[in-house]
């Protein structure tokens, strides 16, 4: 297996380092860089595929074929689009707050990559198995708010501002039920570490069955967190033109786009990890299971996106605070009582 091979390779390299008396921190830095590169490649490849998939799914839902010309089944369409976007003129509006405007996409993108540090791809394949894994993910998720606020504020555009304010309200309100839903899982597993959560699911059943309510809350909140229809208010096209990224174009816009899909992927893989037992599964290699489960959620999110209309901002708040939050709280309490008994 690849994993074992990598592990043995690491061991032999480490042995070489020790034998030659080279400082071990070099090795640590080297592995860190490799891990980051690996995660980046994984994200970029997946996002390329995801965008293609979204267009195909939306196409077929709407009785059209989606992209067909670039490459087989239009698979290279995203690549072509990315190229086009990169070649575009980089426009920064005259009234924009330059630095904030430039920084905003980066602030959005970096956390969406950092989430992948703790996601277990397969047995032992994980950039870093933090013991506060879920806490870390939750902390990173809250980074999206400042980035969107920055984008909306700095654009010097009223639509952007409105989009940014909407997103701030939305993301903050949905973080609460999201974390409460995750806590239900944590209570069951007794650990914040993602590998422990998977192990706990291997011992019993998928937490989807023990935490159905928590799962629904998590999924709705996660959709809201990743700004997808029906919760795509920050960029609500028909209302706010393009919301917070109205003034963005070219590669800055593409970074926002990338972030959106990276977040979707992160959300889906976390859902797979927390509720479907992550990489564990019979017959197929663990990594394949991980991909299948992740893409199951991705498909679900896309299916929902191309079916539902957009919810209104006050209804969004109502749903978050008046429905999801109490439900998540009750769920958590019931889970706690259940575990204690």
């Amino acid at each position, binding site marked *: 297996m690849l994993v074992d091979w990598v592990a043995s390779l690491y061991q032999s390299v480490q042995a070489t380092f020790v034998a030659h008396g080279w400082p071990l921190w070099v090795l640590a830095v080297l592995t860190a860089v490799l891990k980051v590169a690996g995660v980046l490649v994984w994200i970029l490849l997946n996002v390329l595929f995801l965008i293609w998939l979204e267009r195909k799914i939306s196409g077929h839902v709407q009785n059209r074929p989606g992209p067909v010309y670039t490459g087989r089944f239009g698979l290279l369409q995203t690549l072509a689009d990315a190229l086009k976007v990169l070649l575009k003129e980089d426009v920064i509006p005259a009234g924009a707050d330059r630095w904030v405007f430039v920084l905003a996409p980066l602030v959005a993108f970096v956390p969406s990559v950092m989430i992948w540090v703790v996601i277990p791809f397969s047995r032992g394949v994980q950039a870093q198995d933090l013991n506060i894994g879920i806490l870390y993910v939750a902390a990173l998720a809250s980074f999206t708010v400042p980035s969107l606020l920055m984008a909306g504020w700095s654009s010097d555009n009223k639509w952007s501002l409105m989009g940014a304010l909407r997103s701030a309200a939305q993301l903050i309100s949905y973080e609460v039920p999201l974390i409460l839903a995750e806590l239900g899982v944590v209570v069951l597993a007794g650990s914040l570490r993602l590998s422990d959560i998977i192990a706990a699911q291997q011992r019993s059943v998928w937490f989807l069955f023990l935490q159905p309510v928590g799962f629904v809350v998590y999924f709705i909140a996660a959709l809201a967190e990743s700004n997808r229809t029906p919760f795509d*208010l920050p960029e609500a096209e028909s209302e706010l033109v393009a919301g917070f990224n109205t003034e963005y174009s070219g590669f800055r816009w593409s970074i926002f786009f990338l972030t959106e899909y990276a977040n979707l992927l992160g959300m889906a893989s976390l859902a797979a990890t927390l509720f479907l037992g992550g990489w564990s599964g019979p017959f197929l290699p663990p990594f394949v299971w991980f991909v299948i489960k992740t893409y199951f959620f991705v498909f679900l999110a896309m299916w929902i996106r191309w079916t539902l*209309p957009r919810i209104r*901002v006050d209804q969004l708040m109502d749903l978050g605070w008046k429905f999801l939050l109490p439900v998540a709280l009750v769920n958590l309490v019931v889970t706690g009582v259940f575990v204690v008994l």
Partner: protein
Amino acid sequence: MALDTHSERRTETLEIPGSDLPRTEEMMVNMGPQHPSTHGVLRAVLTLDGERIVDVDSDVGYLHRCFEKICEQQNYPQIIPYTDRTDYLAGMTNELALVLTVEKAIGLEVPRRAQYIRTIMAELQRIHSHLIWFGTFALDMGATTPFLYSFRERETISDFFEEITGARMMYNYMRYGGVRNDITSEWVKKVQAFLKRFPENLQEYDDLFTGNPIVHARTQGIGKISAEQAIAYGASGPVLRATGVPYDIRRADPYLVYDELQFDIATASEGDVWARYQVRMQEMRQSVRMLEQLLAGVPEGEIMGKAPRIIKVPAGHYYGHVDSPRGEVGCYLVSTGERTPYRLHWRSPCFVHLQLLPLMAKGHLMADMVAIIGSIDIVMGEVDR
């Protein structure tokens, strides 16, 4: 109620939702003329308090093409293609408004077959136009898929139009005294086949969109107007009928063969976005019903009556109106007996309905504005003419 001044209009609004909420600094936003959901080039200047709409001022004229002035230089047959371009989503009914007025003025007889064909076209046009409305309305609400579905069916109707009239949108089909081309029996069969499966499609739209709780939440109680307000402002068509007033020119002042047809006037009582939505959905079903009766009984005969070679309308003032998919399209014609009209005024329902926008939108949220504009089914080509 006499002419409303702007200030009067403000005071007579229904109880403004959210008026008890704390106020913040107001912000002026230009919605349009380039905006994804102002249906063309409507510019609405919104005064917003947060997301809440304090005031709306609609600024029209971005699509003004001097339609009425051009008509003063064209002889009567030449005007027909221009009417297609006012409300470009319902060309047939616009043409009807013009030709019926002129026919009334010169007292032309129209053969029964032509009358049937005209009615068929007008009702097909209603479905055609309502399908676009349905799609764009769903699009405004953030659902992209219904748009594509409705356009799928609309394409079929466009094909029907193209086969007979030669064009998919700008038909130039009605003639003084009849219609341009005859329909064939194969065409009738094709349309009948379409009408058979169209209710299934409507059911699909209902499952996908009408029954969706998000749609209910976003349309019910939004953009409410009372029947009195609607009448005072001169609303017509689905906007008026959604307030519970069963006024339909097809019944109130029957033209063509509408008085021989069995159909219900679709109404709803609430006067909000949801009511207008339901009225239009019902109207499509009623149109199907009418079309079934019409297609079954198209009489044989001529399609053109004895029209003079050169159309001259006797001096005088004439008004003709039809119920277009959007409301009452009226043609006010002043003639001095020449080959060209002295003055032609076009009463366009969308222009009238646009005046209701502040009434409907005040106190609602930014997102509702989109739903409201969608629900009055605005076509800027008709507003600006």
